């Protein structure tokens, strides 16, 4: 199978997210209430290590496995898009206690009701597509 490596990376990601409890609704509440360092530690150390990896790729000119360049695209600048979109996602993140990665992993954890959450997220994505041209970007 052509994409088998992505299946394995995804499995690894799902295991890390479960074992670090970042898929937990309670952990997200603890984060938004500033009552534990755990989530800030996970995101902060992921960011620090991420900075290292990005710099490593750029400075050592690391290529993909089949020799093409790894391109980092600058995101188009805007305030409204990121602030409004981000805030709406934040409301949903606190409600469901999950961002898109954990949504998938929670289903694997046996919390099958997250299938309904994913379906609703698909509907939200679709409605965004319909309204895209009317929203500030």
């Amino acid at each position, binding site marked *: 199978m052509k994409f088998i490596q992505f299946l394995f990376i*995804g499995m690894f990601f799902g295991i890390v997210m479960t074992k670090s409890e970042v898929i937990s609704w309670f952990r997200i509440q603890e984060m938004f209430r500033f009552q534990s360092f755990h989530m800030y530690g996970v995101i902060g150390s992921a960011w620090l290590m991420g900075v290292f990896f990005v710099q490593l790729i750029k400075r050592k000119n690391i290529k993909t496995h089949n020799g093409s360049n790894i391109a980092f695209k600058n995101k188009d600048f805007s305030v409204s898009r990121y602030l409004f979109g981000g805030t709406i996602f934040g409301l949903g993140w606190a409600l469901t206690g999950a961002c898109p990665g954990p949504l*998938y992993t929670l289903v694997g954890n046996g919390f099958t009701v997250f299938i309904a959450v994913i379906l609703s997220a698909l509907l939200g994505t679709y409605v965004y597509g319909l309204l895209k041209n009317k929203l500030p970007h």
Partner: protein
Amino acid sequence: MYVHQLYKMNNMIDFLSQPWPWYISGPLIALVMFLLLRFGGNFGVSATLRSMCSMAGAGKYCDFFDFNWKSQRWNLIFALGAVVGGFIASTALKSTEPLALNPNTIEDLSQLGIYFTGEMVPMEIFSWNSLLTIKGFVVLIVGGFLVGFGTRWAGGCTSGHAISGLSDFQLPSLIAVIGFFIGGLVMTFLIFPILF
């Protein structure tokens, strides 16, 4: 010899079954980003929602979904892997310890009528039956809708902005992450007391 190896493997599984500390998990998440880039992908999970809309035929009704979703198959396979990983972690590597949640969080939530029993999520909300209640509908359906709508408007979620974008010092990602927290804090401190 064989028994000895089996014993060592059991020890290993016990070791991995404990909850993982943040300073192990965070760098491993960055490693996931690195591996995805290395294999020609990128770390942005919410993009899979758009791909699935397109896969289901939304491109016929809306230009935003009229793109070659097959170029994103690797990400859909990655998401499938994240489901399988959740299954493995909750079965073969299942933790015997309850979540070490801060007692203040437990207390604050119990005042809202949400009780912590050691599970990952409050089961009275995250069950199929609760879909028929107002609270359950708001959390699961309205919440899911806001996640899908907001991430696409913002052009990414925690993986795409907070990890990938911030690692590349993208200012738009910082604005998005500030937005994530504005929304999360408004929900937690202003809307939760009304909702629950």
